């Protein structure tokens, strides 16, 4: 087991924890943070590969992910605020009016 593999495993774990966080945690803000965690995990794997290969392309992608993640948060937080205003709750379990 070399470093690359370990880092990749860490990346996979972070990604999965991020996913699982959305499943497990009820707080909407925590959920958003978990999504950030997912992207971070992916970033880690990208950087690992980039360094392994010594190529610039994944780094560009990581940069793009930064941008996208930022934009996502910038959009997500107002939406959550809006929801909080209407539902008076941060609990994701309360956001289930649409179903069926």
């Amino acid at each position, binding site marked *: 087991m070399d470093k690359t593999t370990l880092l990749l495993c860490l990346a996979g774990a972070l990604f999965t924890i991020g996913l699982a966080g959305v499943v497990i945690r009820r707080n909407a803000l925590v959920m958003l943070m978990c999504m950030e965690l997912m992207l971070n995990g992916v970033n880690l794997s990208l950087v690992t590969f980039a360094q392994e290969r010594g190529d610039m392309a994944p780094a560009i992608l990581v940069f793009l992910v930064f941008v996208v993640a930022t934009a996502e948060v910038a959009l997500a937080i107002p939406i959550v605020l809006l929801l909080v205003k209407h539902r008076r709750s941060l609990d*994701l379990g309360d956001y289930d009016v649409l179903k069926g």
Partner: protein
Amino acid sequence: MTSGFPHLLAAIALLPLAGFLLNGTFATALGGHRFSHRTAALVACATPIAAFALTVMAFFQLQGQGFDPIVEPLYRWATVGDSSFDIAFYFDRLSAVMTLIVTGVGSVIHIYSTGYMHDDKSFGRFMAYLNLFLFFMLLLVLGRSMLVLFVGWEGVGLASYLLIGFWFDELANAQAGRKAFITNRIGDAGFLLGMFLLYRAFGTLDMDTINSAFISGSGAMVSASLVGLLLFVGATGKSAQIPLYVWLPDAMAGPTPVSALIHAATMVTAGVYLIARMAGIYVHAPEASHVIAVVGVLTAFFAATIALVQTDIKKVLAYSTVSQLGFMFLALGVGAYGVAIFHVVTHAFFKACLFLGAGSVIHALGGEQDIRKMGGLRTKIPFTFWTFVIATAAIAGIPGLAGFFSKDEILWYAFASEAGGATWLWAMAAMTALMTAFYMFRLLWLTFMGPSRMSHEVEHHVHESPFSMTGVLMVLAALSAFGGYIHIPHFLEPLLPLPGVQVAKEHFEQPLLIVSIVLAFTGLGLAVFFFGGPASRPEAVKQALLPLHRLLSGKYFVDELYERVIGRPLVWISERVLLRMGDQMLLDGSLNGLASLAQRSAGLLARVQNGSLHFYMMFVMIGLAGALLWSWRHG
């Protein structure tokens, strides 16, 4: 071949059709009753009479060419590949006899009807139906191909259906019509199968071709007996033989002229005609012939026993008809085709006369049909009485009259024919003859002799029928009296040779003749003894043999049996098994089950969509993990 008249035979058949169309259109509700009664009557009677005249013409033409059959193609009905179905008419000795009877008796009954039905509001319709019947009957006897015969065959069934149910306001009448039609249909199914078999074997349905093929022995492809039996199934339907005779007594629901024309003189003898026509087959089908003989004699016997105790004047005659038809089949079964036709002819005369006489009685009594409520009519309606006497005597086999000759010949061949004659056949037939004499004279006595048992009101209205009816009665009575002297078997012999006589039995002819005469008079005597005297005499016998009486007056409960064994199970199976279990439970049930399954699973799936992001993401995780694991397969 065709001198002067190009479509003579076609004209014979089509004339009544023209009458039907005219009257059917203009003398009924369809055309708003545009014809008066008189016009309708004129049209209706003129066509059969003209047809009769043409038949006579055709007969002379036939004679003129030495009784070579006249073949008259009309048109091609259908072409299929190399074979074709032609509509053609065929006129030989046999057809000639039948056509003459049909048009002749038909004409007089038409005339009779104009009197009998004069006051009926649907007179035009009635006459139209009669014409229609005649048309189909003529197709039946004139057709060259079995197809044409079958058209007529089913057509007369239709006419019979319409006429039995003529007074359809009474549901029972319509029911009787339906029964007749359906019973006939059962026979027709057999007929169809026989026809199919013949077509398969010969590629044609022309009867003369088929006959000669069988006679020349090229018909080995099919068993003659099988064909014979199938056709006989058809005949049992039309000619009211066991087991399909049940419709005929019910058919008396129709107006009496109908009973005379269709259910006595002509239509019911179609089966006899068919088998005589296809004699070529039966000659080579001893088994089938034997079956016919046995069925014939059994029918004759059992129908006669039922007739012994019937109280409805028409029912007695109906069972008598069944019985007489049995005689004819007996004759056919023992190979005496000519004799059977002979009996057809004589029977047509006397039975038509009897029915019309009965009609006259009913007419006179304003609709009463129960002979227990008659009596003493001898003086009130003398023409009817005397003609009735002659016809009764004829059917009973009183020597010298028509029935005697034909019946005696049947008895003789039943006894002695080389083609299946047997003593027991004769014995049964002779017993039947005895019973025939008995119940016919019983009928005569109860109706016309003795004191009147009519209600006062009915008695007051009794009147002799108009000349259109009595005149016809007299014609028919005369024919019943002298018809036997036209020796039909002899006339038909070139076409339908009589069977040889078993050598051992040759010398029995004279004794048997005497026996049958004795039987006729015994029947007469017994009838007079029981019914000419006090009413206690028959009553005593009835009491002594009460179970038997009940069995007979219940007609052996055959109708009930059929209802139990066939009718009800059919409905039960259709309703309970096929409809409820099959269609509703099994098919629709499983379909609706599937539909509700779909609905329910839709509901379930909709419940999965529970609105929770946790849950949605869990699905994503499951999918991701599952798909990744899946990708490990197939190393």
